[in-house]
């Protein structure tokens, strides 16, 4: 008999404690146990990027991590990053340029784009479109053909500094 194990994580700033079966992925834990369904689950093998969340501030695939592995760590999902306003500039750019259609890939792309833009600004470089496409190479979008997504990220990357992560 495999027993559920205790997991304590900080999700979007709130401390959460649950008992979880070892085989449950972080993505399923967020969606089913915590009701945070903004983290989307596509391929479950780390190819599509729809489930990407921040783990201790770094983007990771929530389908390629067990909830029990994340014990003691900080997770920020699309819900938390949206509510805090950290993504507002990117979200406005995606809206203005129609950089989403069905929206399934959007949460993962926003998490990756935020990390990418933060890196660009830290290093003082303004990315080319090729570099932006490279940064998105782990995110599938089946609707837009990526052009509008690259446009949106390019417009933010070329603008004034984004609000920095508080943590």
């Amino acid at each position: 008999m495999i027993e559920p194990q205790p997991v304590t994580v900080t999700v979007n700033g709130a401390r959460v404690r649950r008992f979880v079966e070892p085989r449950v992925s972080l993505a399923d834990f967020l969606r089913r146990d915590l009701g945070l369904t903004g983290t989307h689950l596509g391929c479950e093998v780390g190819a599509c990027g729809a489930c990407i969340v921040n783990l201790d501030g770094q983007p990771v695939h929530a389908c390629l991590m067990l909830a029990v592995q994340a014990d003691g760590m900080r997770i920020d999902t699309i819900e938390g990053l949206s509510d805090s306003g950290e993504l507002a500039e990117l979200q406005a750019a995606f809206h203005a340029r129609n950089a989403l259609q069905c929206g399934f890939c959007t949460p993962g792309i926003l998490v990756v784009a935020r990390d990418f833009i933060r890196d660009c600004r830290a290093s003082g470089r303004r990315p080319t479109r090729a570099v932006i496409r490279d940064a998105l190479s782990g995110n599938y979008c089946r609707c837009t053909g990526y052009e509008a997504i690259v446009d949106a990220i390019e417009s933010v990357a070329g603008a004034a500094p984004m609000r920095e992560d508080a943590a």
Partner: protein
Amino acid sequence: MKARAFDYRRVASVAEALDAYAACEGEARFLAGGQSLLPALNLRLDAPDLLIDIGRIESLRGIVLEGDRLRIGALTRHAETLTSPLIAEHAPLLTQAAAYMAHPAIRNLGTMGGSLALSDPASELPACMRALGAELEITGRDGTRTIAADDFFLDLFENVIEPGEMLTAVRVPLPVPGTRMRFDEIARRRGDYALVGLAAHLVLTGPTVESARLAFCSVGPTPMRAPAAEAALAGRSLDAAAIAEAKAALADDLAPDEDEGFSAAARMHLARVLLGRVLSALTGQEYGEMAA
């Protein structure tokens, strides 16, 4: 798909991990970054009874100079390999290769030891280890042994690690003056598995190639050395004629398989193109300078 049920135990030391493995009555797996293991579990290609999470063992971390070697702990993340100043200074081949390894979110969790222990011949790190002449440190309950990268890889996803042993570190020799190294690969898309990849490590005295170590990925069941091409370079000036001979000699080194969508001949052609590209780039480096 979802993984089959398994038990999970997080351990704090290598000794504890090895004991847990020995005590497991079914199949156990060490879980490091999980970026290959979890896909395999989710696809039910693998269904162990127990995962032993070694991801927080402190002694498996760290990149340090040890005499004439750079020791890289097994839990070094690919993102650290990409940005480590020590690796950039002493083993820039790995810095270059890390940029080709999957995508940033995978690199944030995937580990050096995990990639080498998996021994996927399409991966960059196994080829780099052979090109660098690295040693791999394997620890079991009876102690630690060290094995040369050239002797480590046995076959497709097979290596010399015995059940109950763990890859704990790699040691990369520090470059001697005249060393040049370069990694490059050809893939359909950035982050995809390479159609062919090449890790090249040359030592030159003046214009003359003293030694060449060439290791290819994705052209055989293991990372493949290219002894005929290496011999074609040894003792020669690194010029267009020598490069052409090395490219021709590759026919004696590699015999890639057909696969869906790609013929053996096409893959062989790409291997030659890549060898020419990498060696030409190395020609351009100043003597004594390493690729940045």
